């Protein structure tokens, strides 16, 4: 499937882009992170949470095809 992946804050700094579409046939978010870490080696040095369909999810969640986001530590307020 094709997944829309969004990067924010210091994660976008590492990827150099804020958003991309990724063709991917794996099952879990963990696998997607593995694939993207090959493309962006500094990704694994960063701390982040992940959202799928705008809800925080754990890395062993199954990919549903919804929008995925890499979220660095929150800094609101």
């Amino acid at each position, binding site marked *: 499937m094709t997944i829309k992946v969004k990067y*924010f804050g*210091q994660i976008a700094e590492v990827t150099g882009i804020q958003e991309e579409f990724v063709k991917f046939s794996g099952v879990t978010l963990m696998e997607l992170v593995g694939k993207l870490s090959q493309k962006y080696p500094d990704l694994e040095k960063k701390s982040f949470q992940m*959202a799928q369909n*705008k809800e925080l999810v754990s890395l062993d969640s199954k990919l549903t095809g919804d929008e995925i986001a890499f*979220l*660095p530590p*929150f*800094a*609101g*307020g």
Partner: protein
Amino acid sequence: MKHKNVFKSGAIASEFIGESIAKHQSKTNIGAHNIFLGQVRADVINGRTIAAIEYTAYEDMANAKFHEIREAAFNKFDLTCMHIYHSLGKVKAGEICLFVFVSSPHRKVVFEALEFLVERIKSDVPVFGKEYFEDKTHQWKVNK
């Protein structure tokens, strides 16, 4: 689902806050207002001084989270009104980046509700802050 937009471009003006207070004078069942304002600090870190924070957000998710937090607060506390505004983009040191405003007939409720809201906003909403030093270098803000 499309939620109300909490974000404002740039700093939140003191006049806007004053006007927001004025609008509540027709709600004569209100006895107590409580307002939290977050202001950008000119922290000095290893000799470099923060000049501004540039805020970005995962806007759709953030507005959905703000909506969730608002609903939770209305369910938990007897509030007459609640308003939340957060800056996006650059906010200079000394300027206001967060404005949370609750109103209720009685004071006990507003103290509890305001702290609940601010803590939830800090912990649950995907907002990111790039702290610019005066020498144009930067670091990333992390909420404690």
